[in-house]
């Protein structure tokens, strides 16, 4: 079982979710509002003539837990749905997961997804 964490641009969420649903990959996902810092330059905000650089930009983090064989498919979908080609498109991180449990039923492992 793997966990995919994707950091994407705010307005890409709907496309990504749609893409994953169509591809019939996701049974679910969890989204978190985060602020990201990276190559992408932040923007300048000016209040009363004084400049403030906002280096942390609003991003969304999508967490998806899925079975090993689905990972590559999911990555592909995210890649072409979340991509604008501009700096700041974000990252996808893949890590291993030992177990998953559905609270409602107590089911464990893959059937919990």
């Amino acid at each position, binding site marked *: 079982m793997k966990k995919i964490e994707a950091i994407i641009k705010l307005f890409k969420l709907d496309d990504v979710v749609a893409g994953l649903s169509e591809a019939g990959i996701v049974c679910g996902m969890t989204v978190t509002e985060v602020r990201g810092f990276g190559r992408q330059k932040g923007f300048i*905000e*000016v*209040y*009363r*003539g*004084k*400049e*403030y650089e906002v280096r942390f930009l609003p991003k969304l983090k999508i967490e998806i837990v899925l079975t090993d064989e689905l990972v590559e498919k999911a990555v592909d979908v995210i890649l072409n749905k979340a991509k604008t080609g501009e700096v700041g498109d974000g990252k996808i991180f893949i890590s291993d997961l030992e177990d998953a449990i559905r609270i409602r039923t107590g089911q464990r492992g893959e059937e919990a997804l």
Partner: protein
Amino acid sequence: MKRLMSILVLLTLLCRGGLALAEEQVSAPSTPAIAEQAETKIDTGDTAWMIVATALVMLMTLPGLALFYGGLAKRKDTLNTMTMSFIAYSVTSILWIIYGYSFSFGPDLSGLIGAPVKAFLKDVTVKSIAEVARTIPEYIFIGYQLTFAAITVALVSGAYIERLKFSAWLLFSILWMSLVYLPICHWVWGGGFIGALGALDFAGGTVVHINAGIAALIGALMIGKRKDTTLIPHNLTMVLTGTGLLWFGWFGFNAGSALSAGGLAGVAFINTNTATAMAALSWLFTEWIFSKKPTLLGLCSGAVAGLVAITPAAGFVNITGALVIGLLAGIISFFSVTKIKTLFGYDDTLDVFGIHGVAGILGALLTGVFADPEMNELGRGLLYGNPGQLYKQAIGITVTIAYSGAMTFIILFVIKILTGLRPHVNDEIIGLDESQHGEKAYNLHI
């Protein structure tokens, strides 16, 4: 807390004593008291307008200024900032009826202060009329003047926020209102020497704005810089709301200063609106040129600068005067805030000096230039063949700056000894809402 209490008790005793003493000195019965018997021909129209005007100026402080300042503050200091306006208004409301009104508008004692013969509004009855406002009940005049005193104290807070102890502010409101506002108010409007000398101040350019602006500057220097000296408004929708309410209430402030519902109020009204709109736009375009983008905060800041600058001139200048005053107020205030401040590096958190001080001085001077006898025979400025007026204005300004600056220094110095000015640095970092009040402005989760 304990310490503060004892201090407050002390203050109370002192003032009581003072009052007693003063009353002896004044043998003469308060002239207004007589006036009452004389003629009581209250005009219901003037009264209707002045009741509303009083309520409007009250609205400027609560919630007007509280929203304007609170929205500009950091989220973690929002409530403390709003509380400062609330305290200023409440404390002033009480002290004003105890001795404030009497010291500022009581029978003049050698041009310096009013006699406390009306402490606790002694002898004021439902029929009373103040000498300076012959067509409305004295109670309304008292209330109207009260709201001016209150907002002046509240204005100062903008320069001190995000780093001043709550107890220190409480003491400051009491002392500053008593020792700085009351005398200056008497000098200009209560029969004191500045008014006598002929300096023009229709609605409070010197008494309110220059006065508050200087106190702000001195305080900013004495209290010192904040740990985090940024000014990133935590909620600009609040700032806009506050600005709108200030603009709205300011009609009571300026047009109300005619003390009657007639042509002069009309002049003050249209001038106020014109200068304000002009200043909002001139600030907007100036910042558009010099810092790339036109902002809502710019419009709000410009509007306030315009309101301040037109205040002393509202009932004296004509529409052209209003246009020019507004135009300059927006531009000059913008530079005073962006350049001067960064040049000298004092931490006037919300630019009280940069806007109220600077625009106040500008307005007071330009009143001496544009005062048009056709609008109000009481004022004739440079452009209408009376260069001397400009000189009188200068004196009024200088005296106010000198006195307000000096006294503010002393008051803060004393408070520093009594309670100290700043909270522990960690309390400043976690925010004054948490450390001073144990409250949070927003509890949005769940």
